């Protein structure tokens, strides 16, 4: 068995758990930064460890293209190649391959690539369909995904070192672990949470649930309350490269002219290296013009995403929840 999932605490449907993987013992709920091509843009593996990153996601399609899964295998796997000691997750590659190869051909190929890359968690190929569609296409996607999962299981050559996650599409499925896909594609929020709620209600309690492509901090909080454990999204790093910082109140656009002479830090409550040392005015003069701007903002945004799900809840939130009759005292720093 390459994975152990142990629930350590609960609050209604929400759970705090330990997910023990071959390369790292993770605490959930957790957020996974996306390192598409074997790197998180502009950050070193040391920095990622420092800010509390537990798992990084890699894109099988991109890595299969460059430098190829065979090369990664030859050099000892992706962990060794990029020198990341903690956990890795790779996706099936299906989503990006759609336009280039006949979908059915890549089912086993995707698993083979992922076996070579060597991540702790690998994804089964799914037939991706949006939740906004209606009609027979949904049922087709569900059955096809089920058939493909069987083929993935058969093709998986390293079950003791890598964990295969099945993806729920259009329905529910009794497979090893569970990922909830097909969301994060622009459907309205009211539909989105209902699908997540439905999935988490039906999926087994003792296995981790991964909502792919989510996302905004608020979405993560809601999904965690409903019983999900793992998330990934390009949002924090991508928005950093456009000069936007994540803050408790929402977002801060550092490019804006109002920032030119603003001598406050990005977020006075944030303990990251960027907020401790730099003013909005200085970051403003860097963003979109100098590589350093992207680096510093990516650092801050990832710190924000990685620290908040389990991090210290500000006192004002504890007080507000008190009045609202919701007990979050276990999350508040004493």
């Amino acid at each position, binding site marked *: 068995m390459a994975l152990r999932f142990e629930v350590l605490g609960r609050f209604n449907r929400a759970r705090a758990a330990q997910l023990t993987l071959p390369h790292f013992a993770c605490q959930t709920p957790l957020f996974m930064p996306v390192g598409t091509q074997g790197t998180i*843009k502009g950050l*070193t593996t040391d920095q990622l460890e420092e800010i509390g990153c537990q798992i990084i996601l890699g894109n099988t399609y991109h890595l299969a293209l460059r430098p190829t899964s065979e090369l990664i295998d030859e050099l000892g796997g992706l962990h060794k*190649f*990029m020198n990341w000691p903690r956990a890795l997750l790779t996706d099936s590659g299906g989503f990006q391959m759609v336009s280039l190869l006949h979908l059915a051909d890549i089912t086993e190929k995707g698993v083979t690539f992922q076996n070579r890359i060597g991540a702790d968690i690998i994804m089964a190929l799914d037939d991706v369909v949006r939740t906004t569609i209606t009609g027979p296409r949904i049922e087709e996607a569900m059955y096809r995904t089920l058939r493909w999962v069987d083929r993935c299981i058969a093709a998986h050559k390293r079950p003791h070192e890598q964990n295969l996650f099945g993806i729920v599409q259009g329905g529910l499925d009794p497979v090893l672990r569970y990922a909830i896909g097909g969301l994060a594609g622009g459907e309205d929020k009211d539909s989105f949470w209902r699908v997540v709620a439905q999935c988490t209600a039906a999926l087994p309690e003792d296995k981790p649930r991964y909502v792919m492509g989510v996302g905004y901090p608020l979405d993560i909080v809601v999904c965690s309350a409903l019983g999900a454990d793992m998330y990934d999204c390009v949002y924090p790093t991508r928005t950093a490269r456009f000069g936007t910082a994540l803050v408790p109140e929402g977002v801060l656009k550092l490019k804006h002219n109002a920032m030119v002479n603003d*001598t406050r830090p990005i977020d006075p409550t944030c303990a990251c290296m960027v907020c401790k040392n730099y003013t909005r005015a200085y970051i403003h003069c860097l963003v979109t013009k100098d590589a350093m701007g992207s*680096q510093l903002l990516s650092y801050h945004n990832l710190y924000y995403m990685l620290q908040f799900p389990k991090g210290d809840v500000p006192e004002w939130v504890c007080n507000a929840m008190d009045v609202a009759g919701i007990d979050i005292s276990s999350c508040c720093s004493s």
Partner: protein
Amino acid sequence: MKFAVKALSSGKARAGVVHLGSCPSSIETPCLLLSTRKGLPIFISPDLLSSLPSPDSNLLQFSPLHFSEGPSPKTISSIGGLHQMVGLHEYGFAAVARDSIQCLPECGSTNKTGASFETPCGRRLIKPVEYMEMITSMKPNLWATLADEVPAWANNKRNKTSVDRTVKWLDECIARSPAGGAVFGSIVGGSNIEERKRCAQEIIYAGYWIGGFGLGESMEERPSLLNAVTDNLPKDWPRMICGLGLPEEVLQGVAAGVDLFDSAYIYHLTIGGFALTFPLDRTEKIDYNYQLSDQGSDRTKINLRATVYRKDATPIVEDCCCYTCQNHTKAYINHLLNVHEMLAQILLEIHNTHHYLGFFRSIREAIKEGCFEQFQKKFVQSRREHLAADVVSV
């Protein structure tokens, strides 16, 4: 700022020590000023900067023109100056209007009111008043006065004008000089030895900034021009220069008695995907039989984009203790370059800076041992021999 010469070799090359208020340790010279953009290295983030050798890597250079588009001098003052603004309290900053990478002197547009530079924000004319306003708000440890630099081929009349203007602006800058911060008087004069002498003699201050080099003069004419300046400067004060970036050029500067150097070399190597590999071990014998099997290798540097490195799981330089060589392989950097990832430049700037600082350390050792002239000859010769071997083997 305090400076003292500790050793001499071959007459003019000197090893010294400079002490700046904000740096906890003294810094040995000849030394390299690390290039920055707006006070921070171009790719190395501040938390990774501390992985470079200290105190060698503690001197940074910037141009006030980096901040032409904000924040304002008033804001910078209210933050507390440059050290505070970039969070590098224990580093030394040297301010020079010219930055050999992106603020290049545009002598055609310079006029009697100010010096013109080509910058990423377009062409800028900066007057002594504006320059001093920026210096005062930023509070660098040392700064050069505003100069009118001309390239080597400028005619005599233009040369004379540049010296006249530079001396005049020196007075204007010093009149507005903030308390604290060492002033380096700027010396220009193009390729006219007489003008260089005149400029050097008119200026007496805490240190000297030598301008007008790295603007097109040839390797052959440079030593005499350098000597024309340094021969006329008092020995006890530090000399800083811009524009001598390549190793051979640095050696020329050291031979003439220069102490502080900037360099665009590391930047250009880094963005080109090159990593420095030339041997730093001074006792190494020249190996005439070494294999030329590597594509993209000229024994000074390697081109990590070359396909020969695709599967090379060794570090850039085997016993290098920089962050990059301790943690990553040539294969990984090759991949990063191929997929255009920023991490490639970060890792390369770390290694190249580390390596070049090692070169400066070798220079200092050679001077202290009294054999700088041999060191310089051997270094230049081994590069030439390598090129000759290349030609023969083809």
